[in-house]
């Protein structure tokens, strides 16, 4: 019955969360882009970034951003693969890569944020 990895559940919790995290990200990503990428004077020197990174608000902002952003991106990527009829071994491999790389990059990012 469970022929394909990931087809066991209905996928409904992921579907709802994809929308909720998406709504959050619309605000956070566009805000981030206007603050960090649009303004050339927003401070990209080491000292300016450190000053921001020591602030608890920006720390929380970045931790939320990295967690929600990675989850939304990887859940979406898995959702694309789920649309196609993959062999169980292929499906499991892709799922493994998504989960493991997601955890690895989350740890890498969180380590950067929390080292200040």
């Amino acid at each position, binding site marked *: 019955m469970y*022929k394909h990895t990931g087809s066991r559940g209905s996928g409904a919790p992921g579907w709802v969360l994809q*929308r909720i995290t998406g*709504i959050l990200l*619309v605000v956070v990503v566009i805000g981030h882009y206007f603050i960090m990428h649009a303004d050339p004077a927003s401070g990209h020197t*080491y000292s300016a970034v450190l000053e921001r990174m020591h602030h608890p608000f920006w720390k929380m902002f970045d931790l939320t951003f990295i967690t929600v952003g990675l989850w939304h991106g990887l859940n979406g990527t898995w959702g694309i693969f789920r649309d196609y009829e993959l062999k169980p071994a292929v499906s499991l491999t892709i799922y493994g890569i998504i989960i493991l790389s997601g955890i690895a990059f989350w740890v890498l990012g969180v*380590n950067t944020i929390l080292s*200040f």
Partner: protein
Amino acid sequence: MAYQPKPPEGWLKTNLKYTKQSGSWAWILHRITGLGLTAYIYLHIIALTSLTKGAKAFDDEMKLFTTPVFKVLEWLLFSLVIYHAFNGIRIVLVDWANGARYHKKILTVVYGLGIVLFIGMGFLMFREPITNMFASIR
């Protein structure tokens, strides 16, 4: 669920053969931009690990990222952000706010507002070179 046999000519050909209306293109673009943005988060995380390697490593890296080529790439990246964000709102409206009745109108707004914001972001990002260019003409 019954096991669906694969179409004889493979999924790529089948997908290409579908008649695509505006919504299909919106769906395709949403997937491509989503994959692109996910890849970019990974790059973004790797790039910023240089913060833990001290001031020189980080500032050297930032010198590269503020070159014109990277600034233009950064601007182009905004088109992925803005499209994925606005079309995402459209998807939520279709799913939760009876948007299936007016999704083509929202799509027009998505593209229209997206292009306006993309150009606006270009002005914000390249304010200085643009001002200098006009100053030199005068």
